[in-house]
């Protein structure tokens, strides 16, 4: 087991190295960047240096005058010591921006994830136990609709219904206009109130996948031989489903849930942008659109790390939960 984990970890490091290299090369190849627009602005000022001179000076300041490979290794060297540089867009250390925004995303994602599990798994199991019934069809169609719903369209519908027509929630942002005047508990409630619609969006959009996954796995388990044996023994249907089948369905579910835990830190890029929630997703969207190389580099590498950790957790959990799986 330990050997397996170490091997996977080493492999992950190699993969991460190449991913970071590709991302860095891509970012550096972009023909227009933040530096150029700054240089253009500065050279427009009366009595200023020419554009080329500004470009040279700014490139040197931002460490962009080196070649791609040399630049990458200098970035890597700094990154390994935890120094990701200063964000150009936010003019703050990258890690500071990250630390300021990531927890909001994590809380939002976490709450949505809990709701998702609470709703999707029971529905998936009920649908599987009553295959081809009306419940099954309803659940399947809802799950498919959830997968097929474009986030931005659903968010617009929610806004129209709950913000415009009913006036229950606000259209954008995390805090209301009178946020500063509220007590600390009031501020908490204000934020919670603003997070309702984004969380609903996240839950509805992501619920379909888990629901289908649960249903498929439960169906597979229900068709297994040991279930037939249990039924043949005369075990009550309730016991067959919730003791024999459900426990076995949990194996892939635990794996997939464990694997998606790191993803909670990556933020919901689209949803946060749609609702202007200042989490890591919206923050990095602005940075990426603004051509902020240090922050984008950090964010992309961070997501790659999260994906790798997620895969690793899923693999390990699979081996831990299911005694039949032997690691070779």
């Amino acid at each position, binding site marked *: 087991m330990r050997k397996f984990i170490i091997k996977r970890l080493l*492999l992950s490091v*190699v*993969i*991460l190295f*190449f*991913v970071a290299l*590709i*991302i860095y090369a*891509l*970012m550096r190849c*972009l*023909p*227009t960047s933040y530096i150029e*627009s700054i240089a253009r602005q500065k050279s427009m000022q009366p009595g200023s240096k020419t554009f080329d001179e500004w470009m040279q000076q700014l490139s040197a300041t931002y460490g962009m005058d080196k070649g791609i490979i040399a630049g990458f290794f200098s970035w890597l060297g700094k990154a390994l010591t935890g120094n990701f540089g200063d964000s150009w867009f936010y003019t703050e250390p990258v890690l500071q921006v990250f630390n300021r925004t990531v927890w909001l995303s994590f809380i939002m994602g976490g709450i949505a994830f809990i709701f998702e599990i609470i709703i999707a798994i029971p529905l998936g199991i009920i649908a599987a136990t009553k295959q081809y019934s009306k419940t099954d*069809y309803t659940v*399947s*169609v809802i799950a*498919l*609709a959830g*997968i*097929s*719903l*474009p*986030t*931005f*369209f659903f968010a*617009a*519908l929610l*806004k*129209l219904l709950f913000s*415009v027509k009913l006036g229950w929630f606000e*259209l954008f942002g995390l805090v209301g206009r009178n946020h500063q005047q509220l007590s600390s508990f009031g501020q908490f409630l204000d934020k919670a109130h603003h997070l309702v619609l984004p969380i609903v969006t996240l839950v509805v959009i992501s619920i379909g996948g888990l629901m289908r996954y649960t249903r498929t796995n439960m169906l597979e388990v229900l068709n297994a031989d040991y279930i037939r044996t249990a039924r043949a023994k005369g075990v009550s249907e309730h016991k067959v489903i919730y003791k024999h089948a459900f426990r076995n369905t949990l194996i892939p579910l635990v794996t997939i849930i464990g694997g998606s835990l790191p993803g909670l830190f*990556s933020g919901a*890029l*689209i949803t946060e*942008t749609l609702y202007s929630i200042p989490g890591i997703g919206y923050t*990095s*969207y602005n940075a*990426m*659109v*603004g*051509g902020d190389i240090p922050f*984008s580099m950090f*964010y*992309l590498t961070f*997501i*790659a790390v999260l*994906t*790798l950790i997620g895969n690793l957790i899923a693999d390990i959990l699979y081996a831990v939960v299911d005694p039949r799986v032997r690691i070779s």
Partner: protein
Amino acid sequence: MSKKPEKNNKLKNSASEKNEQQYSLNDDRRVKVLSPGALVAKRFFRNRMAMVGLIILIAMFAFSFIGGLISPYSEAQLFYRTDILEKEYASAIVNTEFRYLTADGQEFPSVVQAKMILAVNQNLPECEYDGITYTVTKEGEDLYSVSLADGTLIGIGYKDIFNSNTSDKLPFGLVFEALKAYTNELDTFIYEDVEYSIDIDGTVANAEGELGYISRYFVQALMPDVFLSREFKEDLYETLENGSDEFKFTDADGVEYDYTLYYNAASKKYTIKQGTESRVYDTYASPSSKHWLGTDRNGMDMLTRLMYGGRVSLLIGFIVEFIATFIGVILGGISGYFGGWVDNLIMRIVDIFYCIPSMPIIIILGAAMDAMSVDPKLRMIYLMLILGFLGWPGLARMVRGQILSLREQEFMTATEACGVRVSRRIYKHLIPNVIPQLIVSCTMGLGSTIITESTLSFLGLGVRFPFASWGNIINDVKDTFVLMNYWFIWIPAGALLLITVLAFNIVGDGLRDAFDPKMKR
């Protein structure tokens, strides 16, 4: 299932019973033979939900590809409407203040003018200033003359204004006489042995012609380079007298304009606005018989935009999926068939690509293309290439997995024994066995590609104007005003998007069930 298929089966059974009489028991013709493909098709067509999905898809393709041909409008055809733009043309003020005119060779100091008003207000016949007493005589309504004790007229206070037709200064006496005649509603008056006539409109004329006119209103042009003609002013006065607030006037060039009067109570001023008809883009027009779904922000027909948008969205979906499948099948096939270090290398590449976060990368590239202002058509092609190139790793993994298990089977040993070429073995014998899974994953992938594309277009980083895509049509909803007021701008596009993706997923599901022989029905 419902009763209908049973009925059909009964009919078929009775038919086959008749046939049985003609064929002997072991006759081959008694056995209905179905190829595996036909079996799959049969299973698929029996799945009612999948059929609904298929019909939706066919309808959507017809809508997008044929609809664009049928529609009377083209993709980027602009529509105009005539709108009346009101420009401030002139202003009219009712003169409520006294104006003063000094008699020739006399002095009429402003203090005396003020004293005169006091006297008028208090109904006194005279006023006094600096030890001199002035006589104030009421000559008519709002017309007073001021004279010294010896009867010398020094000036008048009046409210009706004499507008001279010439720029020459009119003699004081003439003005005074004219005003006196006008306020007392006389038709004629005599000044220096000449008879002048004055009509109801206040036009003053003598035998030689018009001199000018008298009116209580003070009219000024507000637009530069505009001379207000006498006829215009007369029409205006008439309108003001009638108390109506609009009139038409044909100017010297024979062009008729609508004029609207606006009264500002605070400044007691009438503003006359000239309405000129101008052609503007017919933006956000409500659904009508001409435009079934209204028009969009640019004044283009919404329904036609939706058709062309569907074309773009579907085409992008197909091309992206084709690119991804092409790369995925080749790399996955090689990897699965050869195994060993080739497999290891390709799988590590797949791992790397799997780890690259695609959405942020596409956003960054989209923003970069924005900065470079790439041509919208070229941009669409880049978008397809990027999406396709980022989409293959999952497919490669799937193909490899399938091939790994397939290559151990007997038929592969047989091809080896027959000496079939390697490329032929992979692409003729292995890949066809993967095709069912490929079709399923492509169908499902199409849906998600369309969502990705539309999300990008929605964010303004995908397909750009003048091309339509369902995503960039909904883009308008970012404007809260559109969200609140113009449902027809974004709901139809969103609904089409949802239905299409749903249909792709349903059909994909149906295909998987149909391909899976283990499925019991």
